[in-house]
């Protein structure tokens, strides 16, 4: 058979008859060839490239407000994020957010954060700025009696100074050294050309002032008053068309360009030189977008690859440039209809050993994880289209096609199986420890504490508390536990009663009543717990489902009186949804299943 080699990245040309190479959610890695790596031709691998899956998303936690706009770990170790208008301190173990304060409300564009070792400065493109005292997390609006501080789109750090662009002017300005105070004379204009300053980036201790049409490089010359000066001879004839597209990796600055001739190149600037890294295929793709100005860029590195990620919110697409291989791929998130959208990541920062990204739409924080093959449970579609096959214009009969792909690496390990089923089909007052029923699975139940009996084919009472443990063994840690919680009197909400089930010996779901309404609670035994009020129910029951898959524990509740589902905000909705989701690794083992209640 003839090998169909793959070598490039995503390359779909203006006319697909030239090239239609789709490369989605796969990145290429070159393999040893004789000439390049070994100097000999004797041990070359048969394929030139292998295409590996892009990392998946493992949810860490959810911030209360939607749209994560920035995530940053301060140089002192503290983790901070902005979601919606809320500025949060992030717990490094639970990834839960504590609200510190608010930036301008109503914006969804990226927020820039940078610290100087003492203070974290936050700017959001408005005329205002905020600071966090890194010693005690005190949040405050930046107050500058000199009037120099006038807000910024971006804040960067260089040589103890915090640098800000002054929006819609050619100016940038700096704070005092190791301070968030300002000197009214510490500013300068981008000066080599008359265009406005769009954004700035610091790489290799130099400031790249990216203008509307052109760019220039400044450095710390140490001169009195304003310490920065333009580096002579470094004028760059490429400006920037999207202020949030600039990102830095190593000594390179990446951005989406606009210059005096056109726009839409992706540029890599390094060592006073610029290089066009976009291909014709990428450029023709970008040319079809309604706008490029909203592009958001960031870089991340994983497994020897460094990627420049460029997301176009309005076009709903994300493209990624592999800085190491120079190849592009598309990074897409698939909705439940199978439609492709921009990737969920809106911002990115490495926190300790985890690359954390924030969701553009909701408050989720995720880890980018090479060993996760879903986007927080949502399948990731990998697509690779091959080059055209032509035989001098003659027709070709295709006898067979074989994919050169790694197989047998997973899937089908666990079959669908009922490990436990208890219907409580027994005459009244049968004690649960005496309960047997041939059609059930996984009996008997053993007493942990107290006793409970069966009434009306349900576990109910008598007065007091009881807990039972299932003797059925769980085959693995991933399983789904379901049960029904049934009020025995719909006219009266009881008080101080509950029923519950425990999975993995550590995740407890409780339905309780307080005399006024019913509640659901998911508790990590030895950890956090979350409760939601459920109101009352006129008939039927609450159908509770606890799904344990890896570190993701999800709880959903449906009430059968009207088939609505409980949402996390306590509202009952028609579409199926999870009420509570917890990411937790406290109880990774299969453990045991228990049930109990207070009657």
């Amino acid at each position: 058979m003839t090998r169909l080699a793959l070598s490039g990245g995503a390359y779909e040309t203006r006319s697909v008859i030239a090239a239609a190479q789709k490369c989605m959610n796969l990145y290429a890695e070159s393999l040893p060839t004789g000439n390049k790596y070994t100097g000999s031709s004797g041990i070359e691998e048969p394929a030139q490239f292998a295409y590996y899956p892009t990392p998946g998303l493992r949810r860490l936690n959810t911030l209360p407000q939607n749209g994560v706009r920035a995530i940053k770990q301060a140089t002192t170790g503290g983790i901070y994020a902005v979601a919606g208008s809320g500025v949060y301190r992030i717990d490094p173990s639970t990834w839960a957010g504590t609200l510190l304060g608010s930036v301008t409300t109503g914006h969804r564009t990226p927020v820039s954060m940078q610290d100087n070792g003492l203070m974290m400065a936050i700017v959001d493109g408005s005329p205002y700025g905020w600071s966090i005292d890194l010693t005690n997390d005190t949040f405050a609006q930046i107050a500058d009696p000199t009037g120099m501080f006038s807000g910024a789109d971006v804040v960067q750090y260089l040589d103890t100074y915090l640098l800000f662009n002054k929006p819609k002017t050619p100016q940038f300005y700096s704070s005092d050294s190791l301070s968030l105070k300002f000197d009214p004379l510490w500013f300068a204009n981008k000066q080599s050309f008359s265009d406005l300053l769009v954004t700035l980036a610091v790489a290799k201790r130099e400031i790249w002032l990216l203008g509307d049409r052109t760019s220039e490089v400044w450095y710390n010359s140490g001169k009195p008053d304003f310490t920065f000066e333009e580096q002579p001879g470094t004028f760059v004839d490429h400006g920037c068309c999207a202020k949030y597209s600039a990102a830095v990796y190593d000594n390179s600055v990446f951005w989406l360009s606009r210059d005096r001739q056109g726009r839409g190149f992706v540029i890599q600037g390094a060592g006073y030189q610029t290089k066009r890294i976009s291909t014709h295929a990428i450029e023709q793709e970008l040319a079809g977008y309604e706008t490029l100005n909203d592009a958001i860029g960031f870089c991340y590195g994983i497994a020897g690859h460094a990627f420049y990620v460029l997301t176009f919110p309005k076009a709903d697409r994300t493209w990624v440039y592999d800085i190491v291989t120079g190849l592009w791929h598309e990074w897409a998130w698939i909705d439940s209809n199978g439609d492709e959208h921009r990737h969920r990541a809106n911002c990115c920062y490495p926190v300790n050993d985890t690359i954390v990204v924030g969701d553009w739409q909701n408050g989720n924080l995720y880890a980018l994880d090479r060993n996760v093959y879903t986007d927080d449970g949502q399948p990731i579609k990998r697509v690779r289209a091959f080059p055209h096959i032509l035989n001098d214009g003659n027709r070709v009969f295709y006898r067979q096609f074989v994919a050169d792909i790694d197989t047998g690496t997973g899937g089908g390990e666990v079959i669908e199986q009922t490990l436990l089923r208890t219907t409580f089909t027994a005459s009244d007052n049968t004690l649960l420890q005496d309960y047997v029923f041939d059609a059930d699975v996984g009996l008997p139940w053993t007493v942990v504490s107290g006793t409970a009996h069966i009434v009306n084919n349900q576990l109910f009472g008598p007065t007091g508390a009881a807990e039972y443990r299932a003797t059925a063994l769980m085959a693995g840690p991933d399983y789904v536990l379901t049960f029904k919680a049934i009020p025995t009197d719909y006219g009266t909400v009881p008080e101080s009663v509950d029923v519950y089930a425990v999975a993995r010996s550590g995740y407890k779901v409780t339905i309780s009543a307080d005399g006024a309404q019913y509640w659901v609670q998911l508790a990590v035994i030895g950890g956090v717990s979350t409760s939601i009020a459920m109101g009352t129910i006129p008939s039927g029951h609450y159908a509770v489902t606890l799904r344990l898959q890896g570190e993701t524990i999800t709880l959903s509740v449906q009430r059968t009186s009207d088939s609505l589902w409980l949402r996390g905000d306590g509202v009952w909705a028609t579409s199926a949804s999870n009420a509570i989701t917890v990411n937790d690794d406290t109880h990774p083992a299969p453990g045991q299943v228990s049930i109990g209640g207070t009657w």
Partner: protein
Amino acid sequence: MAYDLQLVQINTNLGGLNRANTAWGLPVDTDFHTLLMSYWMCGPWHAGPGTPGSPGIWLSTTDFIDFTGVSSPSIILTNQSRPSTTPIFSGDFPNPLPTAPLGCLLHFLVSVDTHAQIVQVYVNDQPVTVTGTWAGTPPYDFNVNDGSNVWQWNVSGVVSTGIHPALGDAWITNPPAFVDLSVVTNRRKFISSTYTPVDLGDTGTAPFGYQPALYMSVRPGGVPADILLNRGVGGGTWNVNGGTPPSFQTDGVCLAIPPPPPRPPAGLALDDVMVRTIPTPPCQIFLSWSDDRGHSYGSPVGQPMGSLGEYRTFCQWARLGYARDRIFKLEWSCPRPTALQGGWVELTAAKT
């Protein structure tokens, strides 16, 4: 035929089981297949006619069912409007009948198939064997609508004004078919006056021995109007002997209907605890191809990627047709580590 209880009610008031048939327009004059009756009576049985003062009541329904005494209550079914005519069936209940606690009610469910000549009787949902004799040859002309006679149930030998609709209903089937009461669901297809399903069994929401709910037939696919037409008045009041209608006449003890069972205290019950595995989906990879130079692709064709450890799995697609310019495309979404290195293709070039 497989029969799903499909009934047309003759009349909500058994005491007026007569001319109302005209309004229903039933072809009962020519033939009827099954007569179904559901009614409640007090127990235990009276010792017999003319023995006042004994607890309970004594019933005689001379037109349809005749309980002629505790020793040998019988069913008599006539094919004419007068009880004096020859019955088409005359039969006896076993002795003794099931008993109900003093002052409680027994539920009778009777199905009579005149074609197959079957009589089924269930008392308190328990089958009761009726032995008897059929006369003549079916089909029987069951003339209800003669306009001159009143079909009645006799209570204690006294022609009453009938059993209150709260206490009984009767139906014939339409289309003609047999309502087989040995099928449990056929004994259960009743609803109460509040339209809620009623289980006639002794574990249902209206247990035997307790004040009966109002029962009525439900035709499959019936519309609310049917329910309203067939609905009785519900409840039911019992009077001592000689009281004003509805005069379900008793010697008085039947009034001692026990109070409803105590409701369980308000609380939460746990039910249907289940644990299921989360199956790992078997993985597939899909191949599609474009023969129009990349403008469109055909339907993807899947191949298994093997379960864990099946490293020798070969993802192969055969007999792929011919094309002048082809682009292959691979797609997969399995949550597993994969690596794609390209592919192989076996092809034969044509001369044109």
